């Protein structure tokens, strides 16, 4: 039977009278967005921690938003993404003095989804590389300590803290990933495999999954056309947007020139007995004249026609 637990990671742009805006523009646009995802058959919805207050305001409460999702064929909100991409004096995972503040933020996010059955608390374990370098084992250990602490707390609320590694984060090479995972408690801190981010950083996401299968709780299925061979990852202040050589890093599954071997990964996933969610993501699909609506349809076509063959 074809895999059906597909969730969608909340990135979207829609045309409004004020130009292209996220669907949080107003309730009508948000409803339309959910309906579009529903029409394609997504069952899970992952979103950002900073959208929770907006959803609560717009739908009356976060559970009310989840009920709206359910009325549209979704099972539930499946994951919440929490991040500190940019280090400040208040929050920086590699700076121990900021851990209490980060922990308190995570507690607040967890409270915001109280009563629901969100599965993944997805985190960016570090900030941008250039703010951390040199990346030492000591700094990685400090970050690991933080996420062990957060992971213990989120588990008490039924969520797994699971780590998602950007190509421009401080923990990016295979060696750094292994070091980080060795310093974290496998019962408390898990692995979230973003296929494009690892590929850009020169790490094979399929191999990562093989090696960390027991700790893997989720995926971002997205593609890229470029491996970072110009140290773009250390471009201040924003490598993703300002790398001189690259105007667009991320693409939906199934584009010409895509580097991720999704069928191979799908085979591994099916063979492993993994039974969690698979998440579709394509950040900044609007670059170069793209549209989120179309990119998402094309990704879902790929799932239904290419990956379904593999996952039967």
């Amino acid at each position, binding site marked *: 039977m074809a895999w059906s637990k597909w969730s969608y990671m909340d990135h979207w742009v829609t045309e409004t009278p004020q130009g292209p805006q996220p669907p949080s523009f107003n309730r*009508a646009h948000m409803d339309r967005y959910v309906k579009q995802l529903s029409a394609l058959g997504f069952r899970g919805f992952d979103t950002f921690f900073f959208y929770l207050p907006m959803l609560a*305001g717009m739908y009356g409460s976060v559970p009310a938003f989840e009920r709206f999702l359910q009325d549209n064929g979704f099972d539930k909100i499946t994951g919440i993404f929490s991040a500190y991409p940019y280090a400040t004096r208040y929050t920086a995972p590699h700076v121990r003095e900021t851990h209490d503040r980060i922990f308190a933020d995570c507690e607040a996010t967890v409270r915001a989804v109280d009563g629901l059955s969100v599965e993944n608390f997805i985190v960016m374990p570090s900030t941008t590389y250039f703010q951390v370098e040199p990346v030492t084992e000591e700094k990685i250990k400090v970050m690991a300590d933080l996420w062990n602490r957060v992971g213990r707390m989120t588990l008490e609320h039924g969520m797994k803290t699971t780590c998602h590694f950007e190509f421009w984060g401080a923990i990016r090479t295979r060696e750094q990933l292994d070091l980080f995972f060795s310093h974290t408690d496998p019962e408390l801190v898990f692995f979230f495999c973003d296929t494009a981010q690892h590929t850009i950083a020169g790490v094979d996401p399929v191999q990562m999954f093989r090696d960390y299968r027991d700790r893997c709780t989720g995926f971002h299925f997205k593609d890229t056309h470029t491996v970072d061979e110009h140290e773009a990852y250390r471009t201040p*202040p*924003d490598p993703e*947007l*300002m790398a001189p050589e690259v105007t667009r890093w991320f693409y939906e599954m199934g584009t010409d020139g895509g580097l991720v071997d999704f069928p191979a990964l799908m085979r591994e996933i099916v063979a492993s007995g993994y039974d969690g969610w698979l998440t579709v993501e394509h950040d900044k699909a609007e670059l170069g004249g793209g549209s989120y609506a179309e990119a998402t349809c094309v990704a879902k076509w790929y799932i239904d026609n290419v990956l379904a063959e593999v996952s039967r």
Partner: protein
Amino acid sequence: MKDTLRWAYALNQWNFRLDVFVRHSDQLRALKTLSACGFDHVELPAGTGRWDNLARPEVILLNHGDHAGFLDFLRRGSVRGVSSVYWDPGQPVEEEGWAFRSTANRHDHDAIVESAKPFVEFCAGVGAEQLVVRPVGSAWMSPPPDAHGLRTVGELWNRVGELAAAVGVGLALHYDCLGAVHTEAELVGLLEATDPALVGLALDTAEFTIGGIDPVAFYQRHAGRVTHVHLKDTRYADTGQEYRMPGAETTMLRGGAGRRIERWFFELGTEGGLVDVKAFVAALRSRAYPGWVVVESDHGGNPAELAMLNSWYLQYELSVAKS
């Protein structure tokens, strides 16, 4: 533009969503667009984080090295300088740990004055004449201000005004249609609670009109306090209480509820525009208004298109020579 009035253009309409206006090449295109339209000074909107590299002083400087480096960048797009910077201290920012502050809360005043410093220093460093600020938070979030409340807010802005004046920068309070200072009486009360030598008023023609204040008549009565102008149009006025809808930024200004009007601000010369732009500009001229007139059309749609239509209006309806 070649005129006795000084014309600038607001860059806020290009930064319409999070991370769309970050690459220097895209920003240079916007600057060239404005230059081709006849504008050679820009107003910067404040922002936060690494994506606001035309908006948050620390990030601007990280991108361009120093103030001179930033001005060189502007000049590559044939823009000669910065007229002003707009800042809302009530908007939580990453650089301050997302702290929520209110100008109506005396206990927040020290922190707000401290958080004004990067903007004041930046204005001085790039030769911007005015720091334009949102004086109070949205009306739907608090009770209407009384005399005491207006005095409290006034005291804060006197302090910031003093900071700014010390480095040759003016401070202008920008009235907006959602602000807790809403009626003309409240606005005048706020102005009276401030020192005219330190604090001026930024008169935004569309915001005034939506809020129910005639910008032409107000300017005639209070010209001496108006030190900055935002020139834009609207097709709608608040029916009276819409600004009080909870979440008015979305429910009113993005049509989430009520009359479901999804766009409020328009370019000059728009069909059905409510602002008497010609009368307003004539009034500015009649009083020899000395400040900047910043044309803008934020929250409106295609930024280049709106800038070009605004430019045409200046040239053909207001007879402002382009060069």
